[in-house]
């Protein structure tokens, strides 16, 4: 067992340092790039925290959808091939929901502040309520 603090905790601290100290004490392109670097570390922190569960779900859906086992790259390649060939489309049971769930999980890591993601998140919440 590796020791603590955890990778997400350390990444969050480095991101805060870049944003609060480096970006503030530098200017122009360097200050901008320090903020970009902080954002990149935050993204990696979210990936470490969120991706394991999201990718396990994605793999389970793909396995059911495609009727075969495999790694994520392989399964996504097969779904891509079937979509390109027209063997499956949005009317195929499970395809639409799978694409939405997978995309929402990517946005939660990549760009959780993206307006379209926020709008869809809000719409999903209001459906649940």
């Amino acid at each position, binding site marked *: 067992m590796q020791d603590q603090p955890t990778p997400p905790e350390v990444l969050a601290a480095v991101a805060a340092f870049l944003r609060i100290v480096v970006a503030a004490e530098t200017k122009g392109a360097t200050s901008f790039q320090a903020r970009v*670097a902080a954002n990149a570390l935050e993204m990696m922190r979210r990936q470490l925290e969120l991706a394991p569960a999201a990718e396990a779900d994605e793999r389970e859906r793909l396995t059911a959808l495609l009727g075969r086992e495999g790694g994520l790259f392989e399964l996504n390649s097969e779904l891509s091939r079937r979509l*390109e060939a027209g063997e499956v489309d949005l009317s195929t049971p499970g395809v*639409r929901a799978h694409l939405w769930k997978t995309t929402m999980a990517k946005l939660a890591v*990549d760009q959780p502040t993206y307006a379209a993601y926020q*709008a869809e998140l809000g719409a999903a919440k209001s459906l649940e309520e």
Partner: protein
Amino acid sequence: MTPLLEALENVARSKLGGDGVDNLTRLTAGATQEIWRFELLRDGERTPLVLRRAPGGERVSETAVGLETEARLIRAAAAVGVPEPPVVHVLAPSDGAGHGFIMGFVEGETLGGRIAKSEALAPARTFLARQCGEILARIHGLDADDFPTLNRSTPAELMDRYRDIYRATAWPRPVFELAFRWLADHCPAPREMKLVHGDFRNGNLMIGPEGVRAVLDWEIAHVGDPMEDLGWICTSPWRFGVLDKPVGGFGEREDLWAGYEAAGGAPVRRDEALFWEVFGSMRWGVMCAGMAAAFRGPDPSVERAVIARRTSENEIDLLRLLAA
């Protein structure tokens, strides 16, 4: 003195009737071009100017039209009433500064988020969509035969090009496959080809409270379906979060189209608008996805890595368009 500064000093004296240059500063924007700002000293006055040149003066992008052609396009557009800065000098080989041109400095806002949201630009937002339509009609009225080196692409050819770029990323994206399939099924019939700007969008327009001050970044101008320009500015990434204003986050499609038709543009095929918005999200998505290779290759910057991870923004935009 850097070689560039020395070259500009010579250009100022020999070509621009000046006494020298001052305050040469690299501006940050522009990934495929260097953009510099400087002041021309002449008769005790300082005139702010902008230099656009190929990276390092020499590295010329495969897809760009070339800076000499870009300068000619800007001059031609200005001649038909498109707001443009004056092109004051096109670099010659003897200038020793590489490929590029010098133009007037235009003050204004280019940040798309501010154009879509800032209080100061609220008056402009009431008529900007219509004005963009009028400007596009003028651009599409330019004689494409005057620019024989520009690429010519039908919608189907453009789609093939982006599909090839996507395939080269060697990373499976079911949402992109869905989009390519839909685009192939909805590809518009060929129509009269026009000179299109190719990157006419919020972010490449210099804006003031009174409207568009300059149309920038002509580097991917080509000859194609004019609906491409009308659709690109309505594509989701250029709304900068203002989702309910489809034109650049500041206006309505109907105003864009009305301005276009009123200024002499061909009747807008409204039923093709969705094709070009889907195409636009696919196009920007493919460009983002391609950044991963650029990051692992010539430009290992954090900025490049982060843009690559914006591909998913386009995936959600595509789902909103095709699988709502």
